[in-house]
Structures are given as structure tokens and as C-alpha cells.
């Protein structure tokens, strides 16, 4: 038994246990932490396979960016609104385990019975070393053979940014929940601030779902009430 096998066993066991943790933990934060552990072990497996660039990127991109965003979202959402742990009906839970086991068995059969290709490609370990290492080899292939796909991946990222801004930003047209009126201002009596939907819904959806909720009005008086001039009235 070689040292490699021992390392492999340790990393993959940790990875799978953490993966099970992601599925099993009640608390989404705990799941996220388990996922971090799983991804670090995935990165270790990448390094074992001679893909150290991907290993590091896996950590930087997934654990450093994507999962931090997930944690961010979990923290921004009111935790009391997060659902209780509940895995469907027991039947569904059981069925999913059975389906998973069957699928795993199928993949296992596929793995055992598959035949590895005999001819070998250009990027053997010696060749990669000669190119300067894993990073250089990936760079050469990615920016020559896959240049077009590289550009399109950048477009996907652009679309992602546009989408996150379009959907994630709070809607500027929504009225604030509390409208502060001043009695000394004509706006106080204007129908601009009337409650309720501002336009009629073109769909058969209840209006209260269609427009954002309009909060109660708070009347803030900075001076003695008698000191205000009401529109259309002479001052008292």
C-alpha cells in the first residue's frame, strides 16, 4: 500500500463525509461550512492528479467567492424565516436514497467495465513539465485552441453581473415603507402619496401582490400644530 493511496483515502473520506454533512445538517450555515471542507478536499484531489492550478482556483473561486456569497445571503435573510429541517415524506427520503444507491451502482458498473483508451494525448507529465508546468500548459491550450470559448465565458460573466444588478438591486420605484409628510408642505395633502396600488394591474393578480406594500403614514410635526399653514385656509 503506497503513501499515495493513504492520502487519497484520507482526502476522499473527508470529502465525502463533508458532502454528507452538507445534505444532512439542519442549519444552512453548518451546511456551508461542511461544503467548504468538502471543496478543500476536492482541491487536494486535484493536486494529487497533477492539476494544482485547478486546485487553487477551486479554492479561490468556490470557497473564496461563491460560498462567501452564499453565506452572505444566508446572513442577510431573516434566520427565523428559514424553513425547519424536513426531508419530505419519509417515503420520499427513502426513495431518494434508493434512487441514489441505484445510480451509484450503475456508475460503478460503468466505471468497472469501461475500457481506457490506449492511445495517449500530448500532455504527458514530462511534456507538461517541459512547457513550464500545469499553469503554462492550461494557458497555452485555453488561449489558442479554446480562445472563442474563453471569450464566450467572459460574456457569461458579463450577463451574470448584469443580471445580479438588475434583479438584486432594490427597486427604486418602490415607495418607502414609511412616508414622512410635513403639514407645512403642499405635498402633505397631495395625492402623490396616496396609499394603494399606483396603477391598475394588467394581470389577474391581486393588487396587493402586484405593488409593493405601502407603509403607514407617520405625521411628523416639527413645530406647534397651530403654526402650520394649511392649503386653502388662512392661518390661525
Amino acid at each position, binding site marked *: 500500500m503506497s503513501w499515495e*493511496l493513504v492520502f487519497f483515502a484520507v482526502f476522499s473520506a473527508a*470529502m*465525502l463525509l463533508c*458532502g*454528507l454533512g*452538507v*445534505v444532512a445538517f439542519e442549519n444552512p450555515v453548518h*451546511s456551508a461550512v461542511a*461544503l467548504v471542507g*468538502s*471543496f478543500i478536499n*476536492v482541491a487536494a*484531489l486535484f493536486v494529487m*492528479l497533477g*492539476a494544482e*492550478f*485547478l486546485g487553487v*482556483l*477551486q479554492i479561490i*473561486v*468556490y470557497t473564496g467567492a*461563491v*460560498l462567501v*456569497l*452564499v453565506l452572505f*445571503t444566508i446572513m*442577510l*435573510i431573516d434566520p427565523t424565516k*428559514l*424553513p425547519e429541517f424536513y*426531508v419530505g415524506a419519509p417515503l420520499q427520503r427513502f426513495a431518494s*436514497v434508493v*434512487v*441514489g444507491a441505484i445510480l*451509484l451502482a450503475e*456508475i*460503478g458498473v460503468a*466505471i468497472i467495465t469501461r475500457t*481506457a483508451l490506449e492511445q495517449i*494525448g500530448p*500532455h*504527458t507529465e514530462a*511534456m*507538461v513539465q517541459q512547457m513550464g508546468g*500545469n499553469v503554462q*500548459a*492550461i494557458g497555452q*491550450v485555453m488561449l489558442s*485552441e*479554446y480562445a472563442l*470559448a474563453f471569450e464566450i*465565458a467572459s460574456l*457569461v*460573466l458579463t450577463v*451574470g*453581473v448584469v*443580471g*445580479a444588478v438588475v*434583479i*438584486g438591486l432594490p427597486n427604486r420605484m418602490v415607495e418607502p415603507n414609511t412616508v414622512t409628510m410635513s403639514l407645512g408642505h403642499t405635498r402633505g395633502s397631495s395625492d402623490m402619496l396616496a396609499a394603494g396600488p399606483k396603477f391598475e394591474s394588467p394581470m389577474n393578480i391581486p393588487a396587493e401582490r402586484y405593488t409593493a406594500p405601502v407603509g403607514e403614514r407617520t405625521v411628523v410635526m416639527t413645530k406647534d400644530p397651530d403654526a402650520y399653514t394649511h392649503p386653502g385656509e388662512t392661518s390661525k
Partner: protein
Amino acid sequence: MDLTTNHFLFVSAALFVIGMMGVLTRRNILIIFMCVEMMVAAVGITLVAFSHETATINGQVFFLFALAVAAAESAVGLAIVVALSRQGRAPDVEEMQTLKN
């Protein structure tokens, strides 16, 4: 016993199936999202293992693209979750039934 590609393929298949079971059983959208990311990572192990076996670097490049795409998608998905939570709704699959007839 030596370490072969099949070892890595088995492990990645197991991780893939665990992620899939998570998607099928959990209700919290964020956890489902994390499980899908786990499936993508499992695919990464498969790709890199094949890349190692066939001595072509294309598999690693493939996973690099998958990584970029997954990052972009996660931004979109989390933005939708945030927008939903802003409407005072929990990210719960079972609760998403206003659309059912």
C-alpha cells in the same frame, strides 16, 4: 494496490450522487444550490481524472470553463433569492406554490 483513475472516478461518482440526493430531498433553496455546486465539483474530479488518464489537458480547461460559468450563475441565483426575501418570502421550495392552479 495502486492508485488508479477508477479510484478517483468512484469518489467523484459518490460525491455526485450525494449532491443529487441533496437536491432531491432538501427544501431550503440555498442548500439545494450548494448541493448543485457539489455536483459540479464532482464533475470536476471526473474531468481532471480523465485528463490525467488520457494525458490531454482539455479536461482541465473544460472544468475551468465550468468554474467560470458556475460563478456567474451563482451571482444570478443569489440575486433572485435576495429579491424574493425582500418580498418577505422564505427560500422554501414547498412554499413556492402561488403558481400552482
